[in-house]
Each structure stands twice: as structure tokens, then as C-alpha cells.
């Protein structure tokens, strides 16, 4: 799924060709767009809605997409933009302060039970911890740790310098390390991951 975007039809080839090309690119990258959206929102319906919104924005701006550059990165950038707008509109402030490393606010009955930490059940705790990060820290962790982007690529998606990605990533990770302490320890003991 890492193929470079193909060439767009030459000028005058008509909007149908561009439309077909757009469809091809969406088909190639919709899963990674969905993963990013799901990790950002923590909610399948909201994620699907966000991907749809980003696809509409991308199609509208498609004439400015430069062939030969990465469509997936460009689309993620538009998607993140839509997400930031939504977050501002909704004014949701449900994340935790990064310096609250106790994780107490995240605790549930099964939260810190590494016995229950089979890999297929990891998604819930990981997603809850991600949700608790402030959005810009969450986005840096998702792009680098879950999607495997370089700092430079993540910086382009997030429109910030690579050094900012590194510092957000680090602070986000330090908070996650404490909030997911039981799981991190299980990985270190070789019982998980």
C-alpha cells in the first residue's frame, strides 16, 4: 500500500479521468485514513464520518494535488485538519493533564489487570489511554508509533517542525507509559507484545 501515486491525466483529459484517479487513490489508502481517524476519535462512527469529510475536502482540492507526491500523506493532512476543526467546534476537553501520571482517572476494574491483556484485548486500554492525551500529542503518537511515519512525514501531516513532533511524541509517550504501566511491564517481562 506504499506505492507512489500514479500520474494524473494531462490537462484537458477531463474531470472524469481525474475522478477515476481519485477513486483509485482512495481505494488504495482508505484503510490507513480510517485507522488514523479511529485512533484520533476513538469511535468507529465518528471515524467513518471524519474519513468521509476528509474525502470530500480532498476531492474538492484534488486539482492542487501534485502527482508524484504521496497522496496518503496529503489526505492524512486534510483529515487531521478536519479533526482539529471538529475538536475546536466541540470544545471537548476530556483529555488528562500530561503531568497527571497517576492514571487514576483512567482506571477501571479491568484496567490494570495484565492477566487480561491478551493481545486481541489490547485495543480497548490502548485506545482509552490515547483518548486521554491532548489531541496534538495523541496525533504525534498515532502517526509515529502506530502508523510508522518518520518525524519528517508526521511533521508534514501535523504542520509543525520535526522537533515539535519529537517533543510531543516524547511527552505523550511518558504519559502513556504511566497510564499503561501494567501493560508496559508485561511487555518488558516478555509476557505481552
Amino acid at each position, binding site marked *: 500500500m506504499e506505492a507512489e501515486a500514479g500520474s494524473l491525466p494531462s490537462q484537458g483529459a477531463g474531470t472524469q479521468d481525474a475522478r477515476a484517479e481519485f*477513486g483509485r487513490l*482512495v*481505494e488504495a489508502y*482508505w*484503510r490507513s485514513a*480510517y*485507522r488514523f481517524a*479511529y*485512533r484520533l476519535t476513538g469511535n*468507529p462512527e465518528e*471515524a*467513518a464520518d471524519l*474519513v*468521509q*469529510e476528509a*474525502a*470530500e*475536502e*480532498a*476531492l*474538492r*482540492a484534488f486539482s*492542487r*494535488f*501534485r502527482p508524484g*507526491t504521496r497522496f496518503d*500523506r*496529503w489526505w492524512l*493532512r*486534510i483529515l487531521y*485538519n478536519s479533526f482539529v476543526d471538529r475538536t475546536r467546534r466541540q470544545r471537548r476537553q476530556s483529555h488528562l493533564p500530561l503531568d497527571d501520571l497517576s492514571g487514576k482517572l483512567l482506571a477501571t476494574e479491568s484496567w490494570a489487570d495484565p492477566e487480561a491483556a491478551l*493481545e*486481541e484485548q*489490547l*485495543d480497548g486500554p*490502548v*485506545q482509552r489511554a490515547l483518548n486521554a492525551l491532548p489531541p496534538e500529542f495523541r496525533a504525534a*503518537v498515532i502517526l*509515529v*508509533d*502506530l502508523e510508522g511515519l518518520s*518525524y519528517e512525514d508526521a511533521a*508534514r*501531516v501535523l504542520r509543525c517542525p520535526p522537533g515539535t513532533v*519529537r*517533543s510531543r*511524541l*516524547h*511527552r505523550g*509517550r*511518558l504519559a*502513556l*507509559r504511566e497510564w*499503561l504501566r501494567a*501493560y*508496559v511491564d508485561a*511487555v*518488558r517481562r516478555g509476557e*505481552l*507484545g
Partner: protein
Amino acid sequence: MRHPQDLLSGYVDGALSAHEAAEVAAHLAECPACRETVSDLRALRRLLAAAKPPDPDPQLLPRLLRTDPRPPRPLLHGGRWLAVAGATALLAVASARVSHLPPGSGGAVRELREHARLATHTPLRDVGLASFLSAFLPDPVEDNP
């Protein structure tokens, strides 16, 4: 060297320059606390990579492939009177803009008139206003990185 802070994440990710990496390595040799942090960061990365998100709804792709270009976002959330006042003011701006266009801008003028027509037909609807405003306002989506 003081504790290298976010350089530790860069170290774990292999994203440091050779010089920075050597400095961090030298620090780690003497600092058990930072060694502990590095081990935790490596474990955390494996943990995060092991968590698999649910599959998307299979209906999402067909919906995406039927995508229509997104109309410009509605810009006014106020009441009727605000919308009317805004539309009136913008029509005034539009006329001013049209009269200042250089010769040979027939296409642009026609486009502005089309927007103005849409906007006057349905001044209270977001689509009319948004379509009208899109002629003037910068696009929120930037070019490729």
C-alpha cells in the same frame, strides 16, 4: 550531560544524528534512570504496535467512492438578520471587486455574477452564501506538503 529528555525518544526511534546518538549513549552508560526510561519507551512502542484497531465498516469504501466534492464550509452561524446583513455587505464588496478587475477579466466577472446570482436566490441558505463567499475567501485546504 543533563537528562536528554526528548532525545531519548529520538534515540529509541533511531532518529538522531550520529553526534546526538553518541551523546545519548554516553549519558545512558552513566544514568540508570534514563536507561529505565529507554527500556520503557521500547516496551511501549511494542505495546502500541500490537494493538489492532477494529476493521472499518465495509460500507465505508463504497460511500467514499461516491464522494461529492465538499461544498465550502458554512461560515455564518448567526440568525436570519445577520445572514441578510452579511449577504448585503458582501454583495456590495462584490460590486466593488468587479469594478476594480483589470480589463480582460470577463471570465472572473461571469463567475462572480454567477455566485452573486446564487447568493441572491437563496441568501439565507448556507449553500448560497458559502458559494458566494468562496469567490473571495482563501481556501482552507493548502497545497501539498
